[in-house]
């Protein structure tokens, strides 16, 4: 992870003179720059962009001199003269936090000197450059700057997405939607998951509250009956029943509370699990799974290839010698075959056996059967020996096979078969070698994803706890159902005894009606909530999922306005029913998802992201953004919007820096 820890500005935009901003580092990753209109928020962002990339627009400006002139502090420019040239400078200090101490510091600096009114560009070495490209490193590590290039990480995200094109619909897009809902703070329920839907509805509709009220009304009804019963015996019977009923009611209350606690815990644990899943995903959990799967496939493939090569080599072992024998002498081939084959069949011809054998043939001038060798045969043998065609070992022999085989044209079919089987072995060896290289790469990639196992361990613990609590919840539900049955029996009995005695007061005559009503309204409320949730979810799916196969690109402008562009054949069409606020959240989610997939570890800067949101959404989004975006998050915001969120965000903030405009071209930065 890379954090911005210090900024130094000198005569940059509205900041006259020198300003040192010490951000430092803390476990809290949120940094707020709070300033009103003209406070210098966007200028600070420009300073960062200019220092890192040489320009502050999304691409290099056409007229760089004019663009850079706009960055100069005009107060300082007025005060500068031939003898005292003005310096405009931005220095950024980043620190690499990868758990190692001391932290590695990376410093970037960009400077402009001016003489008279026209800026002249210089590098730190003093050489004149009309256009300054690239960075001027005061001190850096090789390649370090790449971590900061927005183009680099967006580029690598695109690459990743392209590479995972097959997984796009299944993995990448749902993750974008997931981030969207996390940031939005909406409870998103996938209508394809009935269990989740049921839990969410039950939680949102206070199903237990209806049961509680109904139970209490039943209790009240019994007490009224008892109150109006004059007969002593009946009153005694009722007292006993009501006593039992009260005990059951207390127990029911306790069990329902416990079940409700279980539900809350289950919700929290599920939230924890999904948070860990997100962290695992961000740390490359999905990638780990993919890599592990790939490793298993490659290892299995290698195992098969090795066995096949072994089988093929065993099969063709000696074939080359057989051909040689045939080629040397028709008469002697059986003797030679017997002699050599016993070594060849073992798969390991002892070194030098072939050359020694050939030498003995040449020196003796005879073959094994003592027949004198012809001049042609001697010539071939010498050639074989001198050119070391047979090699010194079995592998070398295999490599030299083609030379050997080309010497003889009398055995075309046999040679052809032999050649093709040898090239089959070659092909398999090449595959084996490329697989081995890939396995080494996978191993390196897996090592670099070391955090994942830690998250996975936590997730396993959470999952185990979830099972335990769900078991408790199921047991409590059984108990509650049993108690409710007993309660109903008692209530019937009370009703029977009471009603045969007196009629209870008229003011309570509608109690039964209220109890019935409670059941109906409970059912209707749950149905209406389900409809709303399903409608909400299905609209989301309609907007985002229905045409996902046709999504061509997502466009985000500098105001976070987002357009989802679809393509059907050659036709482009836009279908995004997002409100302004939704657009903004979608844009941030998309950037977050891109960031996740690119593996970018540097800070993320957001310029006034909350201004279009109403207070409720602002609070929710601001609370959720730090969770959704790992690493340092630097937000530039206005005081009126920040005020609503300040209290909630305090625990997550590393530093709040206030930007104020004291007078024209003289803004201040304070803690």
């Amino acid at each position: 992870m890379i954090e911005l820890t210090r900024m130094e500005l000198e005569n940059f935009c509205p900041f006259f003179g020198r300003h040192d901003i010490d951000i430092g580092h803390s476990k809290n990753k949120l940094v707020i720059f709070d300033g009103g209109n003209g406070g210098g928020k966007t200028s600070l962002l420009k300073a960062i962009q200019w220092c890192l990339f040489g320009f502050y627009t999304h691409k290099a400006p056409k007229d760089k001199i004019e663009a850079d002139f706009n960055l100069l502090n005009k107060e300082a420019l007025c005060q500068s003269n031939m003898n005292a040239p003005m310096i405009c400078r931005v220095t950024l200090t980043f620190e690499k936090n990868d758990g190692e101490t001391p932290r590695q510091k990376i410093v970037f600096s960009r400077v402009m000197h001016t003489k008279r009114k026209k800026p002249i560009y210089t590098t730190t070495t003093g050489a004149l450059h009309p256009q300054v490209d690239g960075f001027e490193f005061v001190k850096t590590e090789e390649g370090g700057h790449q971590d900061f290039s927005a183009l680099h990480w967006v580029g690598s995200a695109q690459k990743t997405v392209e590479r995972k094109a097959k997984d796009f619909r299944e993995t990448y897009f749902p993750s974008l939607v997931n981030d969207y809902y996390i940031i939005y703070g909406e409870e998103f329920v996938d209508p394809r998951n009935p269990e989740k839907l049921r839990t969410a509805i039950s939680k949102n509709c206070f199903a237990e509250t209806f049961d509680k009220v109904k139970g209490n009304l039943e209790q009240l009804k019994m007490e009224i009956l008892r109150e109006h019963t004059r007969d002593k015996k009946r009153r005694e019977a009722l007292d006993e029943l009501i006593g039992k009923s009260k005990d059951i009611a207390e127990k029911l209350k306790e069990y329902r509370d416990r079940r409700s606690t279980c539900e809350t815990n289950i919700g929290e644990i599920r939230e924890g699990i999904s948070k860990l899943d997100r962290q695992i995903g961000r740390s490359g959990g999905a990638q780990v799974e993919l890599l592990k799967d790939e490793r298993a496939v490659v290892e299995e493939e290698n195992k098969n290839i090795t066995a096949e090569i072994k089988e093929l080599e065993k099969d063709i072992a000696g074939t080359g010698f057989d051909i040689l024998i045939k080629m040397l002498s028709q008469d002697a081939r059986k003797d030679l075959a017997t002699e050599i084959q016993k070594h060849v069949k073992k798969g390991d011809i002892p070194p030098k056996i072939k050359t020694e054998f050939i030498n003995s043939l040449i020196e003796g001038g005879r073959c094994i059967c003592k027949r004198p060798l012809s001049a042609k045969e001697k010539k071939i043998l010498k050639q074989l020996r001198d050119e070391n065609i047979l090699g010194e070992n079995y592998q070398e022999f295999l490599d030299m096979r083609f030379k050997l085989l080309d010497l003889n044209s009398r055995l075309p079919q046999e040679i052809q078969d032999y050649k093709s089987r040898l090239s089959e072995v070659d092909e398999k060896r090449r595959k084996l070698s490329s697989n081995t290289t890939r396995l080494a790469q996978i191993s390196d990639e897996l090592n670099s994803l070391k955090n994942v196992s830690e998250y996975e361990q936590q997730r396993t613990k959470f999952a185990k706890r979830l099972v335990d609590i769900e078991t408790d919840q199921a047991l409590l539900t059984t108990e509650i159902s049993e108690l409710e049955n007993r309660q109903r029996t008692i209530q019937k009995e009370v009703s029977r005894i009471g009603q045969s005695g007196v009629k209870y007061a008229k003011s309570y005559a509608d109690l039964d009606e209220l109890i019935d009503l409670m059941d109906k309204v409970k059912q209707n409320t749950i149905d209406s909530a389900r409809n709303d949730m399903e409608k909400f979810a299905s609209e989301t799916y309609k907007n985002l999922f229905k045409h996902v196969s046709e999504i061509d690109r997502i466009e985000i402008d500098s105001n976070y306005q987002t357009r989802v562009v679809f393509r059907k054949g050659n036709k482009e069409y836009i279908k995004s029913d997002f409100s302004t606020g939704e657009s903004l959240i979608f844009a941030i989610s998309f950037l977050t998802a891109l960031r996740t997939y690119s593996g970018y570890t540097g800070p993320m800067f957001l310029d006034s992201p909350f201004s279009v949101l109403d207070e409720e959404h602002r609070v929710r989004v601001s609370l959720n953004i730090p969770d959704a975006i790992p690493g340092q998050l630097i937000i530039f915001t206005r005081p009126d919007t920040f005020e609503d969120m300040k209290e909630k965000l305090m625990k997550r903030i590393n530093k709040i820096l206030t930007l104020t405009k004291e007078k024209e071209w003289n803004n201040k930065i304070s803690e």
Partner: protein
Amino acid sequence: MTKLSKQKSEKFIERVSNQLDEMKVSATQKKILLELLEMETSEYQTTERDAISRYKEIIDVVGKK
């Protein structure tokens, strides 16, 4: 009670109120039911006995209006 759970309770009561309107129940019944539900979702926790007395009180007060 957190602001969020307070908001949730309010939303819930509003939903129930709409349902009762749709079911065309009498104004008295609606008021009683909503007050009882509000009482149960509020921060104020009661024992079982207190709850029954409060129920009686609510029904008496609202019923007599």
